[in-house]
């Protein structure tokens, strides 16, 4: 995001001295420094959700792990993004996400370009220890332009936040709770029947998996573009229209 101020808050991330902006998150500061922290629900340009818990880090003098996405830098804060136990936690969380839905990469539109698949690889998940839940969920292909496959949904709420905060339509929301949590469009009708949808496709652009996709894409053909939202909100909030290519 374009900022007028200079970064002036010194923090230490994995032993590197990093200058962060005031009010910046640990995740964002680490990103600028090129320190990779795994994440799934975080989406630049929308509010912080803090639900996936993949980006938890150790912060000195805090007795609890903190999500890097929702932790604001404090002067001289010391952060560790990697440790044996953090690696173990992240790996198991990734396994839990894989066990919860029906993630069959081989027949997925996002095979090869999926953030969950990438995470599994990054975190060394070569198999899933917990039981697969095999939930029974039906695909919603009622929308003329897009499909929603809840089997692949990881409940990151990127689409919910994007639709409500960037597009302003608030078509999507979560319903139910616990393991019954699921995504709904308007009053739970089929997406194609949801009157508030503007067909803008931003939700599809930001989906980390193949849950939201363009119609007509075959296995492995879907490409998402979450940076779209960062661009839009930066443009709107800062009045700056940057070259999107430069953002990549």
């Amino acid at each position, binding site marked *: 995001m374009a900022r007028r101020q200079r970064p002036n808050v010194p923090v230490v991330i994995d032993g590197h001295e990093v200058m962060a902006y005031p009010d910046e998150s640990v995740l964002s500061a680490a990103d600028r420094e090129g320190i990779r922290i795994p994440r799934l629900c975080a989406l630049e340009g929308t509010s912080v959700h803090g639900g996936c818990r993949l980006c938890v880090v150790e912060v000195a003098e805090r007795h609890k792990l903190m999500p890097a996405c929702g932790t604001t830098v404090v002067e001289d804060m010391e952060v560790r993004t990697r440790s044996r136990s953090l690696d173990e936690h992240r790996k198991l969380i990734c396994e839990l996400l894989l066990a919860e839905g029906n993630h*069959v990469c*081989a027949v997925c539109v996002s095979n090869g370009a999926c953030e969950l698949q990438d995470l599994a690889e990054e975190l060394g*998940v070569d*198999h*899933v220890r917990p039981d697969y839940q095999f939930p029974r969920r039906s695909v919603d292909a009622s929308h003329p332009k897009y499909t929603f496959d809840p089997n692949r949904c990881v409940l990151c709420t990127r689409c919910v936040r994007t639709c409500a905060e960037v597009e302003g339509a608030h078509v999507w929301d979560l319903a139910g709770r616990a393991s019954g949590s699921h995504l709904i469009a308007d009053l739970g009708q089929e997406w194609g029947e949801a009157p508030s949808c503007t067909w803008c496709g931003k939700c599809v652009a930001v989906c980390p998996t193949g849950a939201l996709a363009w119609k007509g894409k075959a296995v492995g053909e879907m490409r998402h573009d979450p940076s779209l939202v960062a661009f839009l909100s930066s443009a709107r909030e800062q009045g700056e229209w940057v070259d999107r290519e430069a953002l990549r």
Partner: protein
Amino acid sequence: MTSPKHAAPPLPRLATIWLGGCSGCHMSFVDLDEWLIELRRHAQIVYGPLVDRKEFPEDVDAVLVEGAVTNTDNLELAHQLRARSKVVISFGDCAVTGNVTALRNLVGEPGEMVYRVYAEHPDRDGQMPSEVIPDLLPQALPLHHVVPVDLFLPGCPPPAARIREALESLLGIDDSPHGIRFG
């Protein structure tokens, strides 16, 4: 080739086996092409769809298991191969995750699923099979949810290069780490 005159240590005994899968992983194995000949110098293949042998042998050093555990035959074989092998390798996404084979779990009970496939959406005459299908387990499961597994080789199918890396590392030919990825 080792000379028959010297009493060389016996080659490691390698098996492959095909449970509930499409045989794609074995196709990928065959894609190892000429390296299969190289492999023959480091291991003897004692069992598999490519070997004419009825029963899974004793004293297997490593076995590549393709496919999910989906029926009683698979289950029995899984226990047998576990008991008779030192190293069990889940070979491909069906064995590792259940993959496409486990999609049947989303349809419901086996009976419901068989009805749906054979009677509700029939290819031909819509008859329920009576004898051909072995008893299905309530769910198709990844191999490691049935027996302990030592190594995992995901992929649908795992590319030949990755199979080679895994085998090279296992047989002590080349220890460089191999990548993993579902799908």
